[in-house]
């Protein structure tokens, strides 16, 4: 029961951060998936055992670390993709602003 309560508390904390606009909602999706997977692992211990057997981990609880590493990798990848998209949009904006400024300078030059 306590495990489920912790997962729900973490999910609520995430919801609060989104509601306060501290985190963009699209970026929280990997966190949500991480909570689901880790919540599932904490409630159903057979899941951890199954993962350990499938992957060949001798000490079963270590499979939680294994799962967490994959989740972390997924989160980092998502953040990198978002950052790249943001960077691209920023560059587009800079190019657009520069084009407008140069067009204005050309106009001013023609008038004078």
């Amino acid at each position: 029961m306590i495990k489920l309560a912790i997962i729900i508390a973490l999910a609520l904390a995430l919801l609060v951060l989104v509601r306060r606009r501290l985190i963009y909602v699209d970026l929280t999706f990997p966190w949500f998936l991480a909570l689901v997977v880790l919540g599932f692992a904490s409630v159903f211990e057979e899941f951890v055992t199954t993962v350990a057997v499938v992957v060949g981990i001798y000490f079963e609880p270590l499979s939680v670390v294994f799962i967490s590493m994959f989740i972390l990798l997924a989160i980092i990848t998502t953040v990198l993709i978002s950052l790249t998209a943001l960077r691209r949009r920023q560059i587009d904006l800079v190019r657009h602003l520069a084009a407008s400024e140069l067009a204005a300078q050309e106009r001013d030059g023609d008038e004078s």
Partner: protein
Amino acid sequence: MPSSTILLLDDGSTDGAISADTAATCLTIRLPSNYGIGVCTHVAFDHAIAHGYDYICRVDADGQHPIERLPEMLNMLAMDGVDLVVGARTLTDEFSYVDPILRRMVRAYFSICARLLTGNAALKDVNTGFFALTGEAADRLNRYQLERYPEPQLFVRAARMGLRMKLFSVERRDRLYGSSSLGLGSALKMIYRFNVLVLSEVMQRSDG
């Protein structure tokens, strides 16, 4: 020189602003922070394409490039039916902080990879920032997202597009202003980027 416009791009420099006298004689853009040569090249190409310029020349502002030879390069574009004229230096300062042998090896590596990638169509120097091209060539090259140090990417792309390129030998001069933005770290990143470019081009080729 025929009728021309000078566009001066300040890529977020911290060592002084464009003077009012300079700003009165040419078009100027000061980027709010350092975005790299790729973005600067895009800004220049965007403007040239939008205003229908016939030719575009790219020159570094540190005095290394012999700008008095620009008319010859433009003449080659106009008379020889070439799309891109590349001002190849006999010696470059880009890797001046490392051993010259290493510098030559890196340049040779870039050149060999570029030639292998493009079926020998790439020119000998794929690192020079001194080049002139037609408006049409700029329009085609501008469709690709250019990297921080875009020269190898530009020349490899141009070769693979089938643009007609010609080498134009220029002498290397000492830098008159400023210092190279290329430190050891950024040089390593540049080599890394080039390798990624090579791999992505190879993958693109195998994708058909």
